[in-house]
């Protein structure tokens, strides 16, 4: 017996050892086969889709469980109705970040944990991210809102002025993205208000009057899906209240639409990541924010399939230019003059924010009246 074992090069001891090792293998490699840790993300659609999260999920054995919302109010509602710790990562529009802070829905962040030095200076101390010198969220992407138009119907020069919405050839063909803030902000810019959301009562009355004069031109008020389809099928030829975050997706798919920042200026939307208060996976959530705000993550975020965006990380611009120069050029994230940062620095872009001298409710009520007019 021993002879046979030895002849085969297998002693009883080595057989037992091999067997034990074989049996223990699943235990030893347990980490590799462990079920991925679930990380909940509250965000706009697209942020937890495979094109964005697959790499991070694989590297960290994580599985994102997204909860998508359709607007800041919806987001606040979902957080306020859920127990603390429900959401590990929260994506918020910049104007809602302060509300998140005030309600205590997000954890404080340590600035040293993030590549803030790689950010353009304008975004290192981004308004809303900081409160009393403490960091609560980190801006991850942004975009501009101007005039979206059908390139068969209008030239870029024609569209580069908000007054184009009143053009008789667009009667019944002007669409509104159905949210008061961007639309009324643009009307405020058209009326020459340097700070479109910080306007006194006289200026507010002027904005209302100007907006009402546009009503006969309007063909409809659309949500996210309706905006896409009405621009795509040429039902609406010009759109107020949106920008490249919608036309960019359509343009990439061959639709004849584009966005332009008019001479009166454009608005800026911004999205920021935070860690949800009471998250049991705050370390992993931090890792995600580190990843998505890194140069590599930022380049990925800029090309998000759901909707493209500009990124605040200067090194992210370099990665994007190397990876996808066409998209970098299309979005204006190149070193060329007139790029996205130049527009901000030239003062052509204003933050989209909540009205300062009026209640948010006042603006919304007027918007309902405008729609019903």
């Amino acid at each position: 017996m021993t002879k046979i074992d030895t002849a085969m090069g297998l002693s009883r001891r080595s057989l037992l050892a091999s067997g034990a090792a074989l049996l223990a293998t699943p235990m030893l490699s347990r980490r590799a086969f462990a079920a991925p840790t679930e990380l909940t993300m509250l965000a706009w659609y697209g942020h937890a889709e495979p094109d964005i999260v697959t790499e991070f999920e694989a590297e960290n054995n994580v599985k994102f469980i997204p909860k998508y919302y359709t607007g800041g109010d919806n987001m606040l509602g979902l957080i306020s109705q859920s127990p603390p710790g429900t959401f590990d990562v929260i994506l918020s529009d910049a104007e809602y970040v302060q509300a998140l802070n005030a309600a205590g829905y997000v954890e404080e962040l340590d600035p040293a944990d993030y590549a803030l030095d790689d950010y353009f200076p304008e975004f290192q101390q981004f308004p809303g991210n900081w409160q009393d010198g403490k960091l609560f969220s980190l801006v991850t992407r942004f975009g501009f809102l101007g005039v979206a138009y059908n390139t068969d119907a209008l030239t870029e020069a024609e569209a580069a002025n908000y007054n184009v919405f009143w053009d008789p050839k667009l009667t019944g063909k002007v669409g509104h993205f159905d949210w008061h803030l961007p639309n009324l902000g643009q009307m405020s810019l058209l009326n020459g208000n340097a700070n479109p959301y910080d306007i006194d009562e006289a200026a507010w009355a002027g904005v209302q009057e100007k907006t009402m004069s546009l009503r006969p031109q309007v063909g409809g008020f659309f949500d996210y899906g309706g905006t896409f389809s009405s621009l795509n099928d040429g039902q609406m030829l010009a759109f107020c209240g949106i920008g490249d975050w919608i036309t960019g997706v359509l343009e990439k798919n061959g639709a004849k639409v584009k966005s332009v920042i008019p001479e009166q200026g454009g608005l800026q939307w911004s999205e920021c990541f935070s860690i949800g208060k009471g998250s049991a996976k705050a370390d992993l959530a931090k890792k995600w924010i580190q990843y998505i705000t890194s140069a590599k993550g930022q380049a990925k975020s800029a090309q998000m399939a759901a909707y493209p965006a500009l990124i605040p990380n200067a090194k992210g611009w370099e990665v994007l230019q190397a990876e996808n120069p066409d998209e970098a050029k299309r979005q204006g994230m190149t070193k060329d003059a007139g790029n996205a940062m130049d527009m901000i620095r030239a003062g052509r872009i204003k933050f989209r924010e909540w009205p300062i001298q009026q209640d948010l409710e006042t603006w919304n009520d007027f918007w309902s009246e405008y729609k019903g007019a």
Partner: protein
Amino acid sequence: MRRPISLYGLTFSLPLLIWQVLFFVFPLLFLVALSFWTVKNFVMSPDFDAVNWTTMYDRAVFWQAYGTTLALAAAASVLTSVLAFPASYAIAFKMSETTRRWAVFLMVIPFFTSYLVRVYSWQIFLSDNGIINVILGGIGLGPYQMLNTVGATMIGYLTLAFPLVVLLQLFSLVFIDRTLIEAAHNMRCGRLRTVFEVIIPSARTGLVIAALFCFILAFGDFVSPVYLGGGEPTTLSILITDTTKSGQQWPRAAVIALTMIGTLMVVAFAAVKFAYKGKSK
């Protein structure tokens, strides 16, 4: 003499009672309570303040949306009933048993697909560059604006309610006593007169209930006014979404919802009363 409630009877009626309490009475009471809550800085707090009621009822846009919704739903009920009646009449009186079964099956098929998908597919037909305008263009007509109009909203309501209205009308028509029709014919009553003086009065209950269902569906519908009507004119369902979009004003949305429920209850009671008028004592 009233019979005592037996355990046997309770066994069958309790689930319905529990269902109604859990999923209708309780949410309704919560909605009533919610309409008196207040909102500050996006946070709702339990309160007993009539401010939401006064604010909403003082707004012209609310009453404008109310009138629009009422008119659209009433128009949809009439239009759907009128268009559905020839179909249900043909199925009930002109088709063989087998063909009728197939027709009923065909009326059920639309419910296999999401209403939202059906409405979206209408956009392909109705848009300026859509199928209908392309066909019309082929014979030198148009293009006509059909999408983002009240007419398109009405098509959406028809998509939603037409099959159901046909089925409800049909159930009423097939149970009409055929001897009444024969008697009418024997007395030299013409076909059209028979329809108006014998068939419609005999099927009144089913026809009214069918129209009522159409009214209820159209009155609360959000999809058609938004995706086919282009969000205008503003209906109450659109106003609810508008209200919740600003500052978490769910209590005000509750006021609109309660007004809608109240209206539907009044309309439903009136319709049922009319449907069964003179039928039972």
